[in-house]
């Protein structure tokens, strides 16, 4: 329950920490696009160098990042195996019915693995170095143009920030309820699948009940303090775009140019 790294904030004073959330989010989203430019080992190498540079500049230890990847490892491996087993082409090493292990399959598997891991690492780097509240402010700012299309951007970002705010509480509470039910003789992770599913009821019901109560309290408190949806709101925390932010977007641009150059140099298209 406490092993979840994604969505946690590590306080610090690094270059990454001082970036504006908007530039971080933009850069991360852009990086995911850039990843799809890579098509051979030279370009993937460049992306790895860039990723490691980003992780290094966040000043959070690498083991934390590895722990962030670990829970998703099975999903990644599953996808990689599908790629490896069902992609043909190049030298074929093994063939058994529809399953083939080929040169292209292995290569594709490796590339997909790299893509997954890099995307997770970069997005973890963003969430580890950004306070959840800044993250939602950043998302709010980036979504602002959608207001013209009558999308309730402020309400959405408020919902997001409230949910993020209560994630730690929910985790604590889950732990507490689990302990309480353990003390009453529940064994988690034992018995048949059906029995295991039954042990979840005594956890989820109290959690639902307390979450609903909390939501009601929260709504009342907000109303008492004069909150009304749809009003134009000022913000307490102002986002400020600095030279660093422009610089990091320029770095992203540089990365794109180098990627395209490497691609054409090595593969010709």
């Amino acid at each position, binding site marked *: 329950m*406490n*092993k*979840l*790294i994604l969505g*946690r904030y*590590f306080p610090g004073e690094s270059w990454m920490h001082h970036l504006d959330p908007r530039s971080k989010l933009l850069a991360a989203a852009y990086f995911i696009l850039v990843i799809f430019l890579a098509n051979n080992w030279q370009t993937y190498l460049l992306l790895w160098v860039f990723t490691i540079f980003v992780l290094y500049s966040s000043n959070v230890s690498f*083991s*934390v990042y590895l*722990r962030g990847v670990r829970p998703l490892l099975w999903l990644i491996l599953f996808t990689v195996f599908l790629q490896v087993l069902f992609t043909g082409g190049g030298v074929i090493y093994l063939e058994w019915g529809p399953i083939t292990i080929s040169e292209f399959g292995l290569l594709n598997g490796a590339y997909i693995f790299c893509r997954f891991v890099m995307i997770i690492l970069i997005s973890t780097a963003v969430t580890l170095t950004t306070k959840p509240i800044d993250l939602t402010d950043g998302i709010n700012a980036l979504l602002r143009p959608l207001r013209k299309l009558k999308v309730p951007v402020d309400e959405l970002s408020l919902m997001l920030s409230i949910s993020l705010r209560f994630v730690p509480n929910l985790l604590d*509470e889950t732990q*507490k*309820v689990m*302990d*309480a*039910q*353990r*003390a*009453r*003789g*529940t*064994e988690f992770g*034992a018995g048949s699948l059906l029995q295991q599913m039954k042990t979840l*009821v*005594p*956890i989820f*019901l*109290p959690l639902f*009940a*307390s979450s609903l109560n909390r939501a009601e309290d929260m709504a009342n408190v907000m109303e008492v303090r004069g909150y009304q949806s749809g009003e134009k709101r000022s913000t307490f925390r102002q986002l400020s775009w600095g030279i660093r932010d422009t610089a990091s977007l320029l770095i992203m641009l540089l990365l794109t140019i180098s990627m395209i150059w490497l691609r054409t140099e090595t593969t010709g298209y």
Partner: protein
Amino acid sequence: MAMQILFDGVTADYQLGPIRSPRVLKSINLEVKPGSFTAIIGHTGSGKSSLLKAMNGLLIPSEGYVEVGNTIIKSSNNKRALKTVRKQVGMVFQFPESQLFGETVEQDICFGPLNFGVPLSQAKEIAKEVVQQVGLDPTILSKSPFSLSGGQKRRVAIAGILAMNPKVLVLDEPGAGLDPVGKKEILNLISSWHHERGLTTLLVTHDMDDVATYAENVIVMENGRIVMHDDKRSVFSNEQQLINWHVDVPDARRFQLKIEQEMGIKFGQVCLTTEELTEALIEVGLV
């Protein structure tokens, strides 16, 4: 038969996400006598709740071992030992009403006994019995626990633990958040249950008057260690040291100290309750 609890060099910590939290229990040695009523006091974060969890196998020692009755909890434990311990040790958490989940009160109270292999018909009988013991009407059994008042929920939650018929009862501030009358009723209930059934009871509390009224022995915790474990009168006799541990004294004792200081006299004994203080005052001829 009452059970003894033994801690031998117990050190434990929580694994909290990427950061391993500092030790919450530091080489604890403790012997709780069978049939005793012990209060655990100490500053917030001193390790009181962790000590309770260690008795129930919810916090496994990284070093040393805990012995409850004949069962040993240590880092290399199997699940069966934990289940044995949990059957014998009933643990009432802080705000236990947050663990209620049953469709009916009866179902919730039966949950513990059923987990420990009591047949359904028998569990229902037990539920009927304990619900009256905690001062509720048996008609409540068919109601949803979510429809009850705060005090009733608390009683149902405690009934759910008592229904397991534990030999050891550990409680983490069972009176927190209740009105004074409700709190007193709950503690009286626990106290009489303790005496009737000959349990070994441990109670975490912040209210020193509760300690004075209900407990026999006191464990003072500070920074993950047990700094004192003694008869309650000896513990409260040394108020200077208690201040260092951020621990209060009972009202009567504070009043006694004040009188002693003002009048320049010394009473024969440490008074913990109003009655004791009144008697002492009569004895020295002040009343």
